[in-house]
Structure formats: C-alpha cells, structure tokens
C-alpha cells in the first residue's frame, strides 16, 4: 500500500489504543467516592429555587449561573447563518 495509507493505519491504531487505555482509568460509572465529590453541583441543586426562582435547575444554570456561555453560543449561531446566506448569495445570480 502507499505511504499515505500506511501512515493512516499507524495513526488510527495509536488513537484506538490510547482511547482504550484511557477508558480503564476513568472513575466507575455513577459512583462518586470521597476524593471527587461534586460540591459545585450540590450547591446549585440546593439553592436553585431561592436564588433564581426556577424549578428547572438546568435552565437556571444555562441562563443565570452561566449566562455568558449562552451569549457565546448565540453569537456562533448568528455567524453560521450569516456565513451560509453569504455563500449562497453568489450562487443565486
């Protein structure tokens, strides 16, 4: 096989072996033991009704505790729509 195909196979096997060994080192699924407790999320769940007034904790996180990320995402959506309309405007003529 050609040189480019050989390099592609080497790269693919390196990534596959790396992912496999990383999965063995993760924490067990669903169990938080004593040295990684989710303290930030426990505080958000306990105080979400009295600080934001929303019954839905995920909406409170998206629009109140981390509203700045939502501003960045709205900007990305606006840029994508502007880019698509720009590309197709020259094709229409």
């Amino acid at each position, binding site marked *: 096989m050609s040189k480019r195909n050989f390099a592609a196979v080497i790269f*693919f096997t390196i990534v596959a072996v790396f992912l496999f060994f990383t*999965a063995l080192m993760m924490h*067990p*699924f669903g169990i938080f033991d004593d040295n990684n407790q989710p303290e930030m999320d426990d505080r*958000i*769940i306990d105080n*979400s*009704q009295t600080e934001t007034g929303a019954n839905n*904790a995920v909406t409170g996180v998206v629009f109140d505790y981390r509203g700045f990320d939502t501003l960045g995402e709205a900007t990305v959506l606006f840029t994508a729509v502007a880019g698509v309309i720009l590309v197709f405007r020259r*094709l229409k003529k």
Partner: protein
Amino acid sequence: MIPLANPVPYIAVIGLVLVGLFAVVFKRNLIKIVIGITIIESGVNLFLITLGYRENSIAPIYTSSPGGLMSLPVPQALTLTSIVIGVAVLALMISFIVHIYRHYNTLDASKIRGDEE
C-alpha cells in the same frame, strides 16, 4: 474489563469516536468525511452526559418531583451548547461542499487535492 464495574457507556463512546475517525481518515468522498465528523461530535456529547450521572438519581427538576438524589445539571447545560455548535458547523461545511462542487465538478478529495495516481 476487570477494573471497571460498569464499562458500557465508555465502550459506547469509544465505539462512536472510532467509527467517526475511520470515516474521516480512510474515505475519499467529501460527504462521507462530513458525516464522520458529525459522528465524532455525537460521541463527545454522549461522553459529556455520562460524566454527570449519580447512581439511582432522578432529573434535576423540582416540578412534581418524587424526591431523592438528583443528577448533576452542569454537564447537561454544557452538552446543550455543544449540540447547537455542532449544528452550526455542519451547516457551514455543507454550504462549502456545494461551492466546491460548482468549482471543481467532482466530490473526490484526492482529485481536488491533486494526488497523482
């Protein structure tokens, strides 16, 4: 998988990422490469959600909830942002493929790059 008690979500994430990576590296049609990129993004979103699960927990919503332990809300908020960004990137990639096809009149990545046979 001796050290992990329940490895099924991590195996699913690895499977999705490897299938997407195979399509990106080894295929020559441009649309198949774009589909491979989308499959990799789905694998990453699944990985973000499985990091936020507690055992025997319910959804983090207080409206008529049966009470008990709640799962973490912050990874779910990050996954929402990631899904929207994936849609935006997919729309831009497809519009560039239409533009490339009008210019080169082929969809083969090695012919566009100019590899000799």
